[in-house]
């Protein structure tokens, strides 16, 4: 007797791109602050990638509203217990961090470098938030499966990390920057994230038990098992075993991770809404 909100493809894309934007930003900020000078490429790729993505997120979110011209109404109130309310604020705040960091990532002076690192350090939290709050938003609704998924936010965050890092590595590959040290590090971080995502996914399913049926059996099961678990996580991990020697395979693995991230948002949103 419950009603589903009718959040369809636009929101799937938003969840996906928002995850990448958040993941790319915090990866960049971590590389910027704790990596070496040669990880500068990673930082720049991550910062610059997050900006168009978060802008696309804003457009998608506004376009999905029933009355798009009233999107500013979200900024009338701030409810700290309401993921949607904080989310709206954070998308805006993250956009500003992303913009400033992107601009500063082209700096050449040590002073602006230091400033960028400090801004990145604060922005990390917004990146984490953007990647995970969408999961908490779903799990604090009244819907079956969503409301029972205690690890939805954690899973989305892990997926945001893996897809964000995959996106950075893909950009490095495409711009011919995969020769640097940063490429290896970001691939390594991506592997950590994928392994973590697999672990979170396993606990997620175990905790859900029979409530996970919309994912694990039925119409969306092939997509979930094949698209997310198989093609999106296990295959890329296997590819990465040889990836540090064959760069094309590593790039392919990054592409598959991105596809897996999309499938995750798609099956989670659509399985109970269709």
């Amino acid at each position: 007797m419950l009603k589903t909100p009718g959040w369809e493809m636009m929101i799937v894309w938003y969840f996906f791109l928002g995850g990448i934007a958040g993941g790319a930003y915090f990866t960049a900020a971590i590389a910027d602050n704790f990596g070496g000078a040669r990880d500068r490429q990673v930082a720049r790729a991550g910062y610059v990638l997050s900006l168009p993505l978060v802008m696309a997120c804003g457009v998608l979110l506004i376009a999905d509203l029933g009355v798009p011209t009233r999107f500013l109404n979200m900024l009338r109130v701030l409810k700290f217990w309401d993921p949607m309310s904080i989310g709206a604020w954070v998308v805006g705040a993250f956009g500003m961090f992303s913009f400033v960091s992107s601009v500063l990532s082209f700096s050449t002076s040590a002073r602006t470098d230091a400033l960028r690192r400090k801004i990145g350090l604060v922005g990390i939290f917004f990146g984490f938030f953007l990647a995970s709050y969408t999961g908490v938003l779903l799990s604090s609704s009244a819907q079956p499966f969503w409301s029972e998924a205690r690890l939805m936010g954690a899973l989305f965050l892990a997926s945001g990390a893996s897809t964000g890092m995959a996106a950075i590595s893909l950009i490095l590959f495409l711009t011919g920057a995969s020769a640097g040290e940063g490429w290896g590090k970001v691939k390594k971080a991506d592997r950590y994230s994928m392994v973590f995502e697999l672990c979170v996914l396993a606990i997620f399913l175990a905790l859900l038990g029979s409530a996970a049926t919309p994912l694990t059996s039925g119409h969306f099961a092939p997509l979930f098992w094949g698209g997310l678990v198989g093609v999106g996580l296990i295959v890329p991990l296997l590819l990465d075993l040889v990836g540090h020697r064959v760069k094309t395979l590593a790039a392919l693995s990054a592409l598959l991770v991105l596809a897996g991230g999309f499938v995750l948002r798609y099956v989670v949103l659509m399985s109970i809404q269709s």
Partner: protein
Amino acid sequence: MARTLAMFTDTSLCIGCRACQVACKQWNELGMEVPEWTGTYQNHEHFTDKTFRLVRFIEEPKPTGDLAWLLMSDVCKHCAQAGCLDACPTGAIYRTEYGTVNISQDVCNGCRYCVSSCPFGVVAFNESTGTATKCTFCNDRIHNGLGPACAKACPTESIQFGFRDDLVAKAQKRVETLKAMGFKDAQLYGADAKGFLGGLNAFFLLLSRPGTYHLPENPKLPQRNVVVDSLLSIGSALIVGLGALLAFRDRGKGRDDA
């Protein structure tokens, strides 16, 4: 704060005439919908943006082999702890001084989070206005000294309107009467202010278990999950961050490509 107003729907008195449903549509100018045959006399199947009151027709098998025909005029419960209200990011959903929950149509921007946050599936999205809609407890009427249209029309007083404390006392007496008459499953749903969702301002007297009426036995506030899930996400962020830190940490000149 004014005294809390409430509607008490005594399903033992409902005759399924649907005067409430029609009166609601008439006053709120909700317009018609094409009916769909659902296998019972019930029409429509569920709340929509054009149906705020809905008489449910439920056939429950009895141990004797007969069917009990249960009728229930369902409506927005105006929960004391309302999931839709807590979910609304624009402040369009508000609580009136009478304790009812209302959606301000000129503030709502149609994000539909309230639709997914109602434990009863009441809030509906209106495609033509792009906003969320639900029963207003006849907000315009109660602010002008009138009762809700449904309660006024009800010919059997199955729907009663008044101050909540008065109605709860009345409802408790009615349950005792019904129990003495042999309706052993007669029970109140949402009357207890210490019960689920802080009590419902539109509460019900049921003749069977809530599940029979497609009502959740123990509805919970969706926002109860926010803290735990956020903490788990923060934990997840720490692990992910640590992983990235390990991968990127500058070990001087050493290559750490695994």
